[in-house]
């Protein structure tokens, strides 16, 4: 049993060290919505993110108590690797344990919270745990929309950092999740800031921010 609280299990990215918790959730996924039961489930909010072409797709169904705003039930389906499946399973547990999480708290869940509960993930698998919070946000937005609370819908606040290439802070976030550590790494992936050198200080700041957010460094 892995007792280390390590968030990142393997900085070289070469190994298959999955924690026992990840394996347990992978082989015994919790809260799956079975095929054919989607219609009668009567979800209050549904979120679908990703696509099979990207390698990950996830659907999250939520039941929400409109008075307490607690998530009373959460079901899911995921197309993806072991980490993606285990992360969704763990997210569904976190959302529904102890009488269900309030929406306010649920929306605070960050990928590294899921990762921590899983006992860590190999470095190159971190990007697999980020789809969960996106699916959750989409499902909550769906509920906001259905209940007419349009002012509460959370919009993905993309900010363009390189207007020549139309690259946003989300693109930088993705690059960092895919392993980019320095400005050079990010530029190799995105060519960002090469034609717009004015943007470089902000890009560097974003790289630092996301590195800290996901890797704690």
């Amino acid at each position, binding site marked *: 049993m892995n007792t280390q609280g390590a968030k990142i299990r393997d900085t070289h990215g070469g190994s298959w060290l999955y924690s026992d918790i990840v394996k347990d959730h992978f082989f015994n996924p919790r809260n799956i919505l079975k095929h054919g039961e989607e219609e009668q489930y009567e979800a209050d909010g549904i979120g679908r993110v990703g696509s099979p072409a990207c390698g990950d797709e996830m659907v999250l169904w939520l039941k929400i108590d409109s008075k307490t705003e607690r998530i009373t039930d959460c079901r899911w389906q995921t197309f993806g*690797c072991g980490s993606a499946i285990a992360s969704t399973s763990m997210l569904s547990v976190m959302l529904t344990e102890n009488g269900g999480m309030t929406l306010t708290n649920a929306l605070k869940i960050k990928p590294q919270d899921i990762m921590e509960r899983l006992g860590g993930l190999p470095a190159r698998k971190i990007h697999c745990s980020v789809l969960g919070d996106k699916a959750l946000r989409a499902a909550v937005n769906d509920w906001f929309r259905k209940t007419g609370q349009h002012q509460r819908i959370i919009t993905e606040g993309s900010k363009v950092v390189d207007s020549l290439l139309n690259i946003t802070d989300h693109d930088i976030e993705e690059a960092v999740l895919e392993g980019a550590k320095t400005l050079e790494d990010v530029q190799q992936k995105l060519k960002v800031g090469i034609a717009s050198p004015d943007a470089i200080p902000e890009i560097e700041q974003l790289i630092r921010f996301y590195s800290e957010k996901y890797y704690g460094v």
Partner: protein
Amino acid sequence: MNFPAKPQQKKNIYLDYAATTPTDSRVVEVMIPFFTEKFANPSALYAASREVNGFLNDARRSVASILHTLPDTIFFTSGGTESDNLAILGTARAHAKSGKHIITSEIEHHAVLHACHELEKEGFDVTYLKPDSQGFISPKKVTAALKPDTILVTIMLANNEIGTVEPIAEIGKEILKWRKSNATMHPFFHTDACQAGGVLDLDIEKLHVDLLTLNGGKIYGPKGVGILFKRRNVSVKPLLVGGGQETRVRAGTENMPAIVGFAKALELVQENRQDENMRLIDLRNYFWSQLEKNIPRIRLNGADLAGNEMSRLPNNLNISILDIEGEALLLYLDEYGIMCSTGSACTSESLDPSHVLLSIGLPYEYAHGSLRFTLGKRTTKDDIDYVITYLPSIVEKLREISPVNLQVNPQVNTHPKYHQR
């Protein structure tokens, strides 16, 4: 869903022979004396060294006779990667004055592709040929890409992922014709034969190649050793400099245990290759027929099994299972002791799925759900039956938690749009 109980005794079913092979015990046997008794450096002058040097020459002669060439065209290296690098970087750098154009294919091993990328940084121009939907590189496409400044063509003999056997002899003939009609010694022709060492005839006169790569770890020999066949008229700029070993083409004290092991391994696999090929073709075709029967919505990737038997490596099976992801499948199979590989992005360093599957025109979602089984000497029908017992229900279980529901399109990569490139 009835998920079959795990076997009481977990079997270990190794179906990843294209990754590497176990070393034949007869090979290990010939290697052992070179660790403890015959340990002398073959370059020294005393009797013990001369004896070891004699064994080095024997190994070289043995490899040369299998390739139908002379011993001085065989160079021992540290493996397939080094041989490919030496053939490409070495030849290009030594012949840059004659031209800076190189032709290769999109589906080469990364040892070839990354060497080509290095050369691009050095100012070389590289043409990457696209295969057809089954992975074949057409000799016509090669000749159409030839230019007066083409100094090297490098195309693999057999593909490691989908097992397609390339028409190297035909391409070689076309290159000979081109050289003759243009009265030039260029381009040289290299083939990476790592996957074919135990399967195909390696006669370099029949293949019409100038350079050929082999390695030990794929032919039941030791890892960390390989050869580069290089005709005398091809000069290469060495990658490693130091002592004058391997006639100054590759410095470093000869890895004697590995070298004698390599020579023995090549001799053994070549001796037995025809019988083993037939056995593996039967086994592989049985495997596919069972998979097709028991798993809905799957697809065979690569050359057609009904076609010419030797147009696909006998041991290779590459399939796409729709709606599920390859890494998840590997994890499940590992629980049952089944070892194979996938072209899914999640197992690669780059987060992109297999460049080979994408190059033959498969959409990403087919590549993400791909599995490669490669059979070998120890594979039995029982092993295949064991996989067939568990794989269908693993697929069913993973499909049960997947929100995706695609339909197989048999024409998925034969659309005219795909052939325009």
